[in-house]
């Protein structure tokens, strides 16, 4: 028996599909994901429409998606996936698009703070192996320049004994740094 194999030209869509094992055409655009998404009111492109844009592959679609704010707002709450009739793992698509947006330097300006927070968070983990909330706060403030924002309610938290001024560390912080380095290296130094 001979079974033919199909070959497609590599496109941004096929890259997304391959990277995360989701088939974009499974989505039949019912919109149930969007209807239940807690962030729908804040998003610039609705979740179902992100998929539609990927499906249609009209000129410039990659840019449009990678520079959208929605991909940064998505909380990976999986409300969409848990109700999607076609079992499209939208949060995974969002994950991938975010990472790609970062790699390609297309992050929506409005997502700057969100990105700063994630970076500061990881930085704290990289240095201590654990999150140090005070350190994170300082780092985030520097990155986002939101100096006035009372991000972690530090004063009241400290008063309630909830903030550790010095970080807890894993015994071997080098080990964690090594994991970060290996992963960064394997991706050609980009992060």
């Amino acid at each position, binding site marked *: 028996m001979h079974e033919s194999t199909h070959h497609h030209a590599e496109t941004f869509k096929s890259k997304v599909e391959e990277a995360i094992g989701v088939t974009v055409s499974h989505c039949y655009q*019912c*919109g*149930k994901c969007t*209807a*239940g998404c807690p962030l*729908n009111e804040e998003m610039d492109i*609705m979740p179902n429409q992100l998929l539609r844009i990927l499906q249609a592959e009209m000129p410039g679609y990659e840019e449009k998606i990678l520079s959208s704010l929605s991909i940064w707002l998505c909380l990976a709450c999986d409300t969409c996936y848990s109700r999607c009739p076609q079992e499209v793992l939208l949060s995974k698509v969002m994950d991938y698009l975010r990472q790609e947006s970062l790699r390609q330097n297309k992050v929506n300006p409005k997502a700057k703070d969100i990105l700063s927070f994630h970076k500061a968070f990881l930085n704290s983990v990289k240095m201590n192996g654990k999150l140090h909330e005070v350190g994170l706060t300082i780092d985030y403030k520097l990155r986002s320049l939101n100096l006035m924002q009372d991000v972690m309610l530090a004063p009241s938290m400290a008063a309630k004994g909830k903030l550790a001024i010095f970080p807890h560390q894993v015994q071997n912080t080098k080990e964690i740094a090594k994991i970060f380095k290996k992963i960064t290296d394997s991706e050609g130094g980009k992060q």
Partner: protein
Amino acid sequence: MARIGVFICHCGENISATVDVAKVAEKAGKLSGVAFSVDYKYMCSDPGQTLIIEAIKEHKLTGIVVAACSPRMHEGTFRKAAEKAGINPYFCEMANIREHVSWVHPKSDATTQKALDIVRTMVAKVKKNAALFPIKVPVTKTALVIGGGIAGIQAALDIANAGHQVIMVEKKPSIGGHMSQLSETFPTLDCSQCIMTPRMVEVAQHPNITLHTYAEVESVSGFVGNFDVKIKMKAKSVDYKKCTGCGACWQKCPSKKIPDEFNEGMGFRTAIYSPFPQAVPNKPVIDRPNCTYFTKGGKCGLCKKVCPADAINYDAVDEFIDVKVGAIITATGFDLKHADFFPEYGYGKFKDVIDGMQFERLASASGPTAGEIRRPSDGKVPEKIVFVACAGSRDKAKGIEYCSKICCMYTAKHAMLYKHKNHEGKAYVFYMDIRAAGKDYDEFVRRAIEEDEVQYIRGRVSRIYEKNGKLIVKGVDTLMNGEPVDIEADMVVLATAVVANIEAESLAQKLHISYNKHKFFAEAHPKLKPVETNTAGIMLAGACQSAKDIPESVSQASASASKAIGLFSSNELTREPIVAVVNRQAPPNFTSCTGCLLCQEVCPYHAIETEDIKDRGGNLIKRAARVNAGLCQGCGTCVAMCRNKSIDLQGFSNDQMLSEVMALLNA
């Protein structure tokens, strides 16, 4: 000693232009067992056939090979000729040297050689042929109709009107099925009861129809024309010969709080009941698990006291009757997907989230609200009502990928009925696609949108929750850039998926018919045999095969009735003898069959039975396979399965096939 005749046809020049027919005839004449060989211009012409007949007689031929066109073209012609000449028609084989040789190859030695190879192959086969005789089976001209919905009713009436006997088996106390529950029907909005009731009465009164309600098929054996069916008559506790249907019993019965199935749980009935006022027969049964007499050890007994006809019989037991029928029509209909299936829609949790059938009852003049659309929780007339299409259908995640086909239409109908009764009210329909592909169907949906101002919103609802007496419906409008749409509704109607009857699988196993993964019965061919099943003599009607509306159910019912009537048009059935047989040997072995029954597992037609082989003293010697020739269709799958070659296919036997292979390869 075989004496084979070989007849090479020129087909005008169709064959002779590329194949050296004279040479083929000459060489064929030299093959072992060949007593006569000749070529001729048109074998199928009258002179050609005469030539064959004469040759058979003259040369005392025991078999013939006609090397000509495809057997699919003229095998019948030449078999008849052989028969005329006095030999069994199955001693005739064709060698296809036209479609498979002369038309596809250029004139060459290789082409002539291939023609000769094929002739040699068929000569080898025919030498192994055996006389076969058409199988004749008698036909019992009575049909069994299982299920008394609109499909079963239509089929029964058609067959009965053609003059044949019909036995109808309905598991509920009344016939009528889902259609008797409907309010008005699309696309004309005529009253369902008005068109249904006369047909139900006709069934009850038809001299050719025997109706068994509150009954089920227990077992089926036999084959086309000759089925033996055991029917279980569940104990009704009421003697229908005496009962007049006066109703005194159910008016007095004190067990009044039993959810009423006919009204989809939106009302109550008594323990002794007739399901609805127009029921046929309009006589009651006692629902024993809910009757005080049966649950409390003989207490109550009121119905017996009040019955003027002394019809109540608490001691009645389930009874079984055996009937013989020639054809079976399965019309057991469908179910709707029920609670627990839509946790995100709160179905089963919020009283005012209902399904389509419940809406039918609310809209029905004979329903619990006398046709006024009021919500179940507090009886208020809803000001805003939301219909959710595709609730569970086309939903891979919920295991139902298919479209339920009828719900687009009944949802439009529901929205319309609501608007007709509540002009000020607002009706919304959340939908994905509108599937209204019947005669006057799309026009019907357009009317709902254009004239009755039903709001159609393209998008699926994510969630429904209750807040301050309202149902919050979280939807989306995908035609407006995916804008979220939240509606505060008073009532929500889910067009829940049409699913197979809950007992479909067990019935299919009793009948030996196939079903698909969703348990809908399978037709023999999706296009060309859409009402027949794989088992000859068993037909399908209505929604038991797939979701269907009334016009489709009725058409299919009439089609299956015509198949039954066709079957009954002669006294016996003739079938080709190309069937499997289990070999027979002399005692003490009787047969080489070991009774492993591998063949039984693979037979697509359930044609293989077991046979107990006994000695003269009646002691069991062995259990072996036996082919029911009435069921066998001659595919031969069993033959390839049998490890010790104990089962063989007449016309394509192991011996014949092996001879063909050897002859083809050994010039």
